[in-house]
């Protein structure tokens, strides 16, 4: 069975780009365009991995991560922050909010799948 990856991202091009890469590598991608939708879809589908943009409208990625971790069914699912935030301390903040990893934008197509799959095994 194909593994499910939930991708929460408000930028359409980014959503398309990452979805395309993941699907080409055989994953099923569940797209969500804002935090609340992402939380709802995560509860419904219980994915194998969640990719989370940090700069989201209305509810930022840190809050989304904290919210996701409150659901016991989602407690052990890896959440990887994908963000262009590059200020010192962003990584720490993401980890503190409950994320398991951190991929910096712009993504490196050559290493992106490696970075994702490190959290799947």
């Amino acid at each position, binding site marked *: 069975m194909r593994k499910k990856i939930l991708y929460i991202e408000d930028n359409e*091009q980014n959503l398309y780009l990452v979805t*395309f890469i993941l699907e080409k590598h055989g994953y099923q991608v569940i797209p969500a365009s804002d935090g609340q939708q992402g939380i709802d879809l995560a509860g419904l589908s219980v994915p194998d991995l969640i990719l989370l943009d940090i700069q989201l409208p209305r509810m930022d990625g840190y809050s989304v991560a904290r919210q996701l971790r409150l659901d016991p069914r989602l407690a052990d699912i890896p959440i990887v922050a994908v963000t*262009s*935030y590059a200020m*010192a301390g962003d990584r720490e903040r993401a980890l503190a909010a409950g994320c398991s990893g951190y991929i910096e934008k*712009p993504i*490196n*197509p*050559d290493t*992106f799948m490696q970075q994702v799959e490190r959290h799947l095994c």
Partner: protein
Amino acid sequence: MTSARRFWRAPLARNLAVALAYLATARLGLTLALEHTNATAVWPPAGLALAACLAWGFGVWPGVFLGACGANLLALSTVTALSRGAVLVSLATAGGNTLEAVAGAWLVKRFAGDAPFDRIGGCSLFIALGALLSPVIAATVGTASFALSSANWSESGQMWLTWWLGDAVGALVFAPLFLTRTGGGAPGRRPARVAEAAALVALLVAIETVIFLGNVPLEYLAFPVLFWTAFRFGPFESAAMVAVMMVSFLLWTLTGLGPFAGHSANHTLLFLQSYFGVAAASTLLLSTVINARNRAEARVKEYQENLERLVDERTAELRLTLDELELAKEQAVAADHLKTAFLATMSHELRTPLNSIIGFTGILLQRLGGPLNGEQEKQLGMVKNSAGHLLALISDVLDISKIEAGQLTVSSETFRLDELVGKAVQTIRPLAERKGLTLSVEVGEGVGSMTGDERRVEQVLLNLMSNAVKFTERGRVGISCRREGESYLTVVRDTGIGIDTTQLDLLFKPFRQLDSGLSRRYEGTGLGLSICKKLVELMGGKIDVESRPGEGSTFAVTLPAAAA
């Protein structure tokens, strides 16, 4: 200036005034002269002439001389018929009077200054030089002319003494009267002051009534009144009170009353003169002391008030400055927040489009979108390189902006330095191989975990190594890492173009890619090394460089193994 004042400034007017005043005061002196003598107990013109010379300068001497001639003729006419001899005596004596005034004024000005009644020293000198010494001149000249004209020297001694004392008392009593002003005394409301002065005069009259009508030798009772005046009023009022006392004493005595009368005329004269001299001198000295003290007190008070006002003003200014500083600080903090927010936004906004460019180029190059022909692959490779370069530039510019804004911070996490070096080498190796350079790596056994900002350490290593590759055309590039005590020493070596010694200082300054000729050959912002230096310093380390042009460069990075 009013026309009246201008008139009194004219020398002629002044001389005329002095002459007339001399005559008038002489008339007063003669009125108070003892009967049947040409000697007066007091010679007020002596004081007037001295005061005129002190106040208006020596230019008034003709007025003094003229007044003195007239006064002497007037005096002589009361005792003898006017003759040629009498006129000559008058002229000679007037010469003595004039010389006395001019010499006295010169001495006082020279030794006691322009304001002799401001200080006790000046006042003492005025008494000694102006009132006691200079009358010697007039007394000597006058006595000599009289003796010469009458060819009789038998009474000269007595005459000299009374002449001298008369002029001395005249100077003591009247010169201060002309030279001082009202208002130097203790503070108080005007009606109260007037009442006090009137009471003092009344007291003096009462005392004199007792002394002269009762004919009791209690002359010293006048002193308390004079001293009281000196204590409570200024030098002018004191001099005036002395004058009032003197005139009234003389009038009483002239009517034959009181303890001074009833002796021989010469004795009476001497008693009165010495009494007036002592009274005038002590009152003058006392009033000067009191006045000086009062003025000093006023100055201290004024100084204190000024000081208090100054302190108040400064305190207010300081408070204002503090408020302004507080405001400026708030604004600076607000500006700081704004800067941070701006940098974060820029960082995000600049990277987002790059994500698409780099991402889709990568997808296409990985054939995820389908097969590519040779040209397409070559062109997409160029897009990929340019995008990577643009990303590096943006990162550098953002880093420098953060440094300039004081916003650059490093995180602190534990990672393995040996693994990080390996990772950096992996990234650089393809670049070195493309240029045909040997890449050597040497990691010591003691190199392991370190605490710092992993991403930033990687950035520094990548920067130094890619610089080494960039500036080396043939030979080798090497990186070595070893532990030295509490620090790790990482050295990046190359056999490249090297750096001129004179340019080493500029190496770590932002926007400096050395030698403008080179900057065309090697692309880059010239920001990398200044960022590296800042990053290393933020992690508590340092970065050193050694280089020889044409032989190569060595960059040594020292970083603490544990968190700084």
